[in-house]
């Protein structure tokens, strides 16, 4: 299958390894991976801030870029949810509504694509360590992604997965919220990270790099010993 | 008394104006053929009860236990009388408030001599009722699904008898046990038609609060204890 990657702006510039891990995994499975270079950002930051006009002007570009894609795979639950759930809302009653819905229909979150579209759960990965999984809110509640990443991780040799008590609790990132209300955002990060630390895990894994930026940001400042990894990075390990 | 209805017309006008544009129904439920939401479906979704009278009773008993409702089966009126006598002695009761009724009237004659009855009739003294040790009432129904006792101002001696004294005793027959709230409302509708009593109350356990550190305390205001004495059908 020809799969088209959607690598959102901050993964592109801050976490290139996440994108490359997805490329390796998909290529190993025999798929041809396409990355249209014209893609930039899904438009979520202005959308979440209330500037929908500005968000739409960015979003129509993305709709255009992915027009001919067969399936679009997102390595971020949040940006994937933007395509899948919020584009139809953003374009409700606008000229590009049909195209927005078409993009929504063919967009997949990475772990959902592997498990529920391709039917693959064992990627032959090996990764030594004790880890806990953070459910990013947009992946969990907008896309309903809960079991797929755990299914994939359960087949990683050497990995011990322990659930934390606050797995489904928001990490406090929330895009611009993290910098507009830093005191609340940081308190939320603290709750999340304390729950991570209680598991005595060496790693916290998520399918959302934006959450990991928040969690990692707090852990590196206050704890230091727990490492953040994107699901794709673990699944690509041999 | 004034017949002032306030801004009735203005508010209704604003409501009608506001409703000119329709709002989408985002989470539709199944509907009956007539297009109206139907109460018949509720049962399929709410906690299951079981079809037989035994299952119904078993659930009521189980919920009563977790609610700390004291449920006792009594073979006949003599046992009910004896049970009340025992409670009165244990609690050193001096007065018991009650109303007249098919199940209660015969009990009045059997009350122990040291326990004086306060019969609630029109225009009782609030202080006298407040000072009673217990309240004895009948009820309309018992609800298996929720472990509730349904009283009305008609069946249970007014609005307050079942909730002011510190110990509420209900005398009922097993045949009054219905499956769920849907059946309870249907039964009340049949019984009262357009002349509902001015109060219907589903009592689910004794008075309780969790307002302090979310720790359960019984008897926040009214009954610290709720006893249901159940006679055969």
């Amino acid at each position, binding site marked *: 299958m020809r799969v088209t990657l959607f690598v959102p702006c901050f993964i592109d510039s801050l976490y290139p390894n996440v994108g490359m891990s997805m490329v390796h995994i998909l290529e190993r499975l025999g798929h041809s991976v396409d990355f249209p270079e014209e893609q930039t950002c899904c438009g979520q930051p202005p959308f979440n801030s209330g500037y929908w006009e500005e968000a739409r002007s*960015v979003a129509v570009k993305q709709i255009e870029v992915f027009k001919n894609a067969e399936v679009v795979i997102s390595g971020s639950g949040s940006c994937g949810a933007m395509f899948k759930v919020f584009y139809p809302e953003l374009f409700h009653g606008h000229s590009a509504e049909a195209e927005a819905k078409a993009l929504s229909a063919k967009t997949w979150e990475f772990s959902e694509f592997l498990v529920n579209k391709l039917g693959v759960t064992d990627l032959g990965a090996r990764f030594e360590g004790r880890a806990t999984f953070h459910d990013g809110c947009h992946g969990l509640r907008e896309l309903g992604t809960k079991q797929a990443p755990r299914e994939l991780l359960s087949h990683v040799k050497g990995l011990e997965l322990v659930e934390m008590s606050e797995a489904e609790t928001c990490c406090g990132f929330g895009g611009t919220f993290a910098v507009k209300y830093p005191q609340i955002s940081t308190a*939320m990060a603290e709750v999340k990270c304390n729950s991570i630390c209680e598991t005595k895990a060496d790693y916290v894994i998520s399918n959302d790099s934006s959450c990991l930026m928040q969690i990692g940001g707090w852990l590196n400042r206050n704890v230091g010993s727990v490492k953040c990894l994107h699901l794709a990075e673990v699944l690509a390990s041999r | 008394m004034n017949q002032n209805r*306030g801004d009735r017309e203005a508010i209704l006008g604003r409501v009608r104006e506001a409703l000119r544009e329709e709002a989408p129904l985002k989470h539709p439920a199944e509907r009956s053929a007539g297009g109206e939401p139907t109460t018949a479906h509720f049962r399929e979704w709410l906690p299951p009860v079981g079809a037989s009278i035994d299952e119904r009773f078993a659930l009521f008993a189980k*919920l009563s236990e977790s609610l700390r409702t004291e449920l006792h089966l009594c073979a006949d009126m003599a046992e009910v009388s004896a049970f009340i006598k025992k409670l009165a002695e244990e609690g050193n009761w001096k007065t018991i408030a009650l109303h007249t009724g098919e199940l209660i009237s015969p009990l009045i004659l059997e009350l122990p001599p040291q326990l004086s009855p306060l019969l609630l009739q029109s225009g009782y003294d609030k202080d006298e009722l407040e000072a009673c040790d217990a309240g004895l009432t009948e009820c309309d129904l018992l609800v298996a699904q*929720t472990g509730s006792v349904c009283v009305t101002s008609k069946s249970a001696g*007014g609005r307050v008898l079942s909730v*002011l004294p510190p110990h509420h005793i209900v005398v009922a027959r097993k045949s009054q046990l219905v499956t769920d709230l849907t059946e309870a409302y249907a039964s009340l509708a049949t019984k009262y038609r357009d002349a509902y009593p*001015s109060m219907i109350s589903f009592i*689910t356990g004794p008075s309780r609060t969790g307002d*302090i550190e979310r720790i359960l305390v019984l008897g926040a205001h009214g009954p610290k204890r709720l006893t249901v004495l159940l006679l055969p059908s």
Partner: protein
Amino acid sequence: MSTIADLPRQQFQSDANRTANDAPRRAAVRRALSNYQTARDRTGATFTDWKSARASAATIKHEAVNHLDRYLEEFEQKFTARGGKVFWATDSKQARDYILNLAKEKGVRSIVKSKAMTGEEIHLNEALIKEGYAVVESDLGEYIQQLKGEPPYHFVFPCMHLRRDEISDLFHRELGTAKTDSPEELTMIARNVLRRAYVDADMGISGGNFIVADTGMISITENEGNARLTVGLPKIHVALIGIEKVVPCLADLALFLPMLATAGTGQHLTGYNSMYGGPRQPGEIDGPEEFHVVFLDNHRTRLLADPEQRDALHCIRCGACLNVCPIFKNIGGHTYGTTYQGPIGSVITPHFRGLEDWKHLSGASSLCGACTETCPVGIDIHHHLLHNRRNAAAQKPAAGEQLLWKAFSFLMKRPALYRLATKFAPLGGLLHPLVEGTAMDPVASWTATREFPAAPQGSFRERFRAHKAAKAELVKKGGVQ
């Protein structure tokens, strides 16, 4: 610069700063609510099909709210036929004045209240006390808050933020009772005070959870029995209810009562669910001689006029969205500065009290969606927070912020420019000069408490290009499968 319009936002930011740093209080609130979560999950699991029950509840509320005029009139007709009185109040003042006049006309001296958020909304107690009436809140939590002189912390659990020793000290100070660390003894202290209040009061005031149209009743849900006594003993009763609280049929409560209990407190059913159809009827032995229902608009019709957010009026005030909200858990109820706290409060307050002054509440959310997930009547709460943000930006864009997003979209619409820009600076630094040194500076805001990720060697697109080139090279050499 500080203007009147800035005040609620400033109060919010400064209270949030304080509460977010109060770790022990945050932990206590979280602990109380995690017990709630366990109870709620356990009870929810006993439903045969919670999702269908929820869709049904949403459908019924949709029907009620979208035909509100018809159902309110039906209620009024049934309720007045049995001797009840209905007063329609446009705003707080009209509702207060009606109740004050009634109390004056009837020679009322003391008033007992059972919990009513509408009472908080219109500041009824202050008005009554100012006119010389003795007013006692009878719900234990509300009573404690009244003694403490502060508003409810949570619209279902009014004093959930207080520890028992704080309540004991309060009672000791205000009532002269001996100190105790037993919640049971504390409850009994309040019980003894309040029993007198019911007997002595000449007027009872309550709210209402549901307005039942087809039988002309109001339904009140409570655990303590205080509302039963408030509606039962005094000779006049006033129920103050928002106009949106309608359900079409009495039988609908067979669904709503268990759902309200399950979502609100994790109980199968709340202790007392009582439906009142007017004053004492002929042949009945007690009950108020007069029963007034005050319908409160107070800008509910403004929310009703917004079809996109109209479903926010489906709310049954169970409090579930507060209980799961990570923002609420970390900043607490008072920080909101509103009658209705938490996610649903953040949605409706801008409609009730003005978007410009209250839009910050919609901004103060990570949009995690836990509220929407838990809502028993299917309100898209966090989507409405987004709608409020959009409406606020459209109504009065913040100059600096609009410029930022215009610059952002200018860049993101131009992939070549974006590539060029990200080649030289990581994304976070791109738009930074626009806001550097201002209150909006995201870098300063972030790095005050968190590390920023280390800049990687090259962007993904550069590495992907290299990867493709290497593969192409291999193919050319015939080295690939």
